[in-house]
């Protein structure tokens, strides 16, 4: 079972990182979206500094939504999913492997790209570690919650749009505590407030990892059988 | 000599710039050469396997430009 899990994880990472995969595209999208903000609101440095944590998180959410719909859809369309569901892995673990692969190819690169964007948005360098830590803790939740949306819209035409609508409300807690952690750090409350927000973020991620695959597998069973 | 590396107090900026430039350029050169070596050895291997029977198909790009 472990061999099957690792094989699937490796394949999905390879497919997504390779030609036309969503990984690089999500980072590029993230860069573009955040770079557009100062053009819209003006290059005033204090304003940008104020907006930076929120904009970075919103950009991150949008970028990870963008690649969500292919998570199961690609395999369902070409018939791979039939074979995957006949394998030794329960669908729950298939969903875990797919969510994990999604995080590795989109979440992780986005976290790495974030400090560069922080510079562009005039985020104080001292808050940068908090930004990265918060994103590192928060992004797995996006992939694992997103898996449920991706599973629910599998087989739906233009499913990406629908998946975004379904998933966004569930992303809100991540957004609130993610921005909270960065703002608390920026406001000089490094100790208490920032740590509290980070702990909440970690709790959300753990819950998402526990519940997301169950929901995704249930949705896939209900829709595809 | 020490003064040279000190760069009038801006050592961090100046040397990071040059270091970054060197790193990016070397990476680019290395990647280009690796790609060339890989592709040409692959082509040689395939050509040998094909044994000259598919010379026509081995011509790169478009045929109508001949």
């Amino acid at each position, binding site marked *: 079972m472990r061999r099957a899990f690792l094989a699937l994880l490796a394949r999905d990472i390879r497919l997504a990182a390779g*030609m*036309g995969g969503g990984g*690089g*595209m999500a980072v*590029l999208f993230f*860069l*573009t979206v955040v*770079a557009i903000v*100062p*053009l819209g609101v003006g*290059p005033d*440095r204090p304003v*940008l500094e104020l907006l930076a944590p929120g904009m970075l998180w919103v950009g991150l959410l949008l970028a990870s939504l963008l690649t969500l719909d292919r998570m199961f859809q690609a395999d369902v369309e070409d018939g791979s999913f039939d074979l995957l569901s006949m394998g030794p892995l329960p669908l729950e673990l298939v969903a875990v492997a797919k969510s994990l692969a999604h995080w590795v190819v989109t979440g992780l690169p986005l976290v790495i790209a974030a400090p560069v964007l922080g*510079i*562009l948005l*005039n985020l104080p360098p001292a808050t940068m570690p908090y930004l990265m830590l918060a994103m590192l803790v928060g992004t797995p939740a996006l992939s694992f919650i997103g898996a449920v949306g991706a599973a629910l819209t599998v087989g739906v035409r233009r499913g990406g749009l629908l998946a975004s609508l379904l998933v966004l409300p569930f992303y809100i807690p991540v957004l609130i505590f993610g921005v909270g952690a960065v703002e608390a750090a920026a406001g000089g409350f490094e100790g208490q407030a920032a740590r509290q927000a980070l702990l909440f973020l970690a709790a959300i991620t753990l819950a998402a990892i526990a519940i997301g695959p169950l929901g995704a597998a249930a949705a896939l069973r209900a829709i595809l059988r | 000599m020490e003064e*040279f590396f000190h*760069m*009038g*107090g*801006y050592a961090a*900026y*100046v040397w*990071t*710039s*040059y270091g*970054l*430039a060197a790193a*990016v*350029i070397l*990476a*680019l*050169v290395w990647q*280009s*050469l690796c*790609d*060339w070596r890989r*592709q*040409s050895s*692959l*082509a040689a291997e*395939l*050509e040998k*396997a*094909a044994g000259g029977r*598919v010379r026509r*198909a*081995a*011509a*790169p*790009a*478009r045929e109508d*430009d*001949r």
Partner: protein
Amino acid sequence: MSLTAAQRFHAYANPARFMALSERLLAPLSVLTLLTLGAGLWFALFSSPPDYQQGETVRIMYVHVPSAWLAMLGYSVMALASAVALIFRHPLADVAAKSAAPIGAAFTFLALATGSLWGKPMWGTWWEWDARMTSVLILFFLYLGYMALWATIEDPLRAARAAAVLALAGAINIPVIRYSVVWWNTLHQPASVFRMDGPTIAPSMLLPLGLMAAGFTLLFFTLHLVRMRAEIMRRRVRNLRLARADEGGL
């Protein structure tokens, strides 16, 4: 002399002839690149005075300005080759366009990064949303988008067509970068580094800057040749594999 101009043009486009010619060119070009860059570095680091206003940080200019120059040169080569590919169906043109992109992108990144490293001690900030920097950032995105498009379409002929259209559409950005300082006075900080645009440059700086720019340009063309050769080989591999699939039965 019975060949028309177009035929002669295409004769040089023959990949086999290109491969032979480029192979002979590569060694002398590499040596020349190394010599020029070496001389440029010597003058840039040792044999030029610090600027009376900017001090030693002015030495960042000797990598920053040539990088920015290559960022524009790379895109110009790419756009020009794309135009040739679209109009004349020149077989080497899309190879040339595709191979220029990663080099241009790398130097655009360098221009942005070294600009940032120069801006911090001079302006006290890593980044400023002025017109010049913003348009160079957009140039960087254009490069990345162009490469992503190539990577997404599997068939090189179709990818070349689509990418060429994108490259030409994005070419508008080149004059924008060039004249951004003039056009968007509102955004631009007058005390910026880019007063280099003016003719106010000391001869003692002109020599290292010129040498470095020449060295970078030579490096660009050397790398471009290597990458074009690799790209031609990649297509040969693709064709050989397709032929193999044809042979392998239905």
